[in-house]
């Protein structure tokens, strides 16, 4: 716990690295906000660089944390939120450049800043740290990492859906000027939504498959609330994808559903966190000297 990185890097604790990361995400958010308030196009390159810097710092912070936890840092609500933000930003950095929308960068920095700053600002979420939560089982660690990564994908899906709803509003209300003109086309946003939902659903399915192999060996270890919450999110994603495929859930309703899906995923994290054991209580301040 509270490990520091050796050698060339500054001697910062995991939380300090994560605060720095949150600072860069917030800088991206502020850059975009200032541009939009001035009615100018947000600088895609600047925001991308801010997000990239935040991502690297977050990666280091989570790395320090992972070394201390002896595995993927998913031991409490704080770590889950951090990992979800990191997953969404990983995906943005990989696919975001193909969006050709500086607004997506702006919204990604909003998401990154919100998830990291909120999780860092609530000490209770990090008051209890758990180590070796996967019991040395790499499959269950992969299950957890994939599940949270899929939630990150749902995070990016929620951002895209937000952009879709803004574009839809601008077209229906016939307001195309100002910063609405920086939005991507509604058809492109729709296609990206479908692909992200399919990707998130695929990752969550894989996570559940890996998890079910472990649970089937010892059903007594399965927390029912966690299982119900996770399966409900998975079923909602499957239903949304199926209804979209047959043309029953389209346009605005589809976008709202995707937003609701991410909200449900975030809410389900509470049940996931509650299912953790064993617990090792340790004050956050001491854990991160």
């Amino acid at each position, binding site marked *: 716990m509270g490990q520091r990185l050796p050698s060339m890097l500054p001697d910062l604790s995991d939380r300090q690295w994560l605060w720095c990361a949150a600072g860069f995400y917030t800088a991206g958010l502020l850059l975009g906000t200032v541009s939009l308030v001035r009615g100018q196009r947000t600088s895609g390159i600047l925001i991308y660089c801010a997000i990239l810097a935040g991502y690297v710092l977050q990666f280091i912070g989570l790395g320090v944390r992972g070394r201390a936890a002896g595995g993927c840092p998913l031991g409490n609500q704080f770590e889950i939120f951090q990992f979800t933000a990191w997953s969404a930003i990983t995906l943005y950095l990989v696919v975001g450049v193909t969006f050709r929308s500086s607004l997506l960068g702006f919204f990604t920095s909003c998401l990154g800043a919100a998830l990291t700053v909120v999780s860092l600002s609530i000490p209770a979420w990090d008051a209890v740290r758990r180590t070796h939560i996967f019991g040395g089982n790499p499959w269950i660690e992969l299950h957890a990492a994939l599940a949270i990564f899929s939630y990150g994908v749902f995070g990016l899906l929620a951002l895209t859906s937000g952009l879709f709803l803004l574009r839809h509003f601008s077209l229906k209300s016939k307001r*195309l000027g100002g910063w609405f003109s920086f939005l991507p086309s*509604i058809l492109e946003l729709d296609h990206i939504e479908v692909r992200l939902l399919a990707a998130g659903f695929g990752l969550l399915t894989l996570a559940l498959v890996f998890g079910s192999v472990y649970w089937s060996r010892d059903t007594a270890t399965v927390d029912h609330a966690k299982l119900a919450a996770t399966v409900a999110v998975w079923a909602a994603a499957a239903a949304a994808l199926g209804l979209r495929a047959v043309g029953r859930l389209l346009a605005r309703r589809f976008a709202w559903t995707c937003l609701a899906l991410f909200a449900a995923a975030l809410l389900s994290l509470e049940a996931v966190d509650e299912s953790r054991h064993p617990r090792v209580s340790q004050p956050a301040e001491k854990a991160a000297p």
Partner: protein
Amino acid sequence: MSGACLFVIGATHQNAPLGVRERLALSSESAIRDDLASVEGLSELAVLSTCNRVEFYGVGSGDGAADSVQAAYCARQRFDVAEFERIRIKLTGRDAALHLFEVASGLDSQLLGENEIFGQVKEAYAAAQACGSTGAVLNRLFQKAFQAAKHVRTSTGIGSGRVSVANVAVDLAASIFGSLAVAKVLVLGTGEIGEGTARAFRSRGAAELAVAGRTPERAAEVAAALSAETVPFGDRDSSLAHYDIVVCSTAAPSAVLSAAAIAAAMRRRPARPLLVIDLALPRDVEASAADLQNVFLYNLDDLARIAERNRMAREAEIARCRAILAHRADGLWGHVQRYLSSADGLKGGSPDRNAREAGQAAAP
């Protein structure tokens, strides 16, 4: 070259009405160049000739060169010199440089902020270079004008939004479909405005274009002009599902597209948006179609309102653009002045040295 001065002389849409501009339009640029080749004291020349302006940018000694250009031009066009002097623009020095900056930026255009003029200025400069009539001053002036125009376009909103109904419609389609290369367009009616809009879609690379008119012969004529296909007017409802954009401009006394017909088409293509542009008066499309999911209905007033908002947004940027351009023109003019005043001294040097120093002196 003592007393050499940069000047611009010509006529533009600001003071010369269309009828006058028709009389002033150059039928042959090479002919006027030949006429001006013999003008004494004129060391550099570029001719900008568009439908909205004929302008001569030159470097010559004092007022004499500019007056000689005017005289030669009026003689070539058989235009009364006194009348020309009433409508002309004549600027010298820094004001001439600023004028070119504003022209290249679209600030002096009839359609404020339009981009076509930038290409036209580039062509004029290329033609002058090809004739060998540019030198250190005009080369620097035009290059700086291009840089200034690009800067103004990217750092202000002077070029943002479209200001004509046809282009607003095309931009609207782009905000729905992204690339128009995936969009299929159906034009209902053969009115002039519909044809103009269809032409704008064609020029922006629409994947497919079809025309349906109440008079088949006229529809075939318009379709041929647009390199489009024809669709029987009676089949419009049944073929609607195939298209992504429908432009309506018939002179029919009542709606030719019902909300029910559009709803039926959308059931066959639920996931794909449909843009309906109703340019007709009375309207061709039932207004309730706007409430359908994935249907975006815009009428003539909607497009005109957007165009007007864009125009006003551009106008609001004029002062900012002018300040930027004035600053740049001041910078350029300071260097050009130093070059022109030292030109006499340079004459004494070798030609190579003269050219080198001229370039350095004119470079801001």
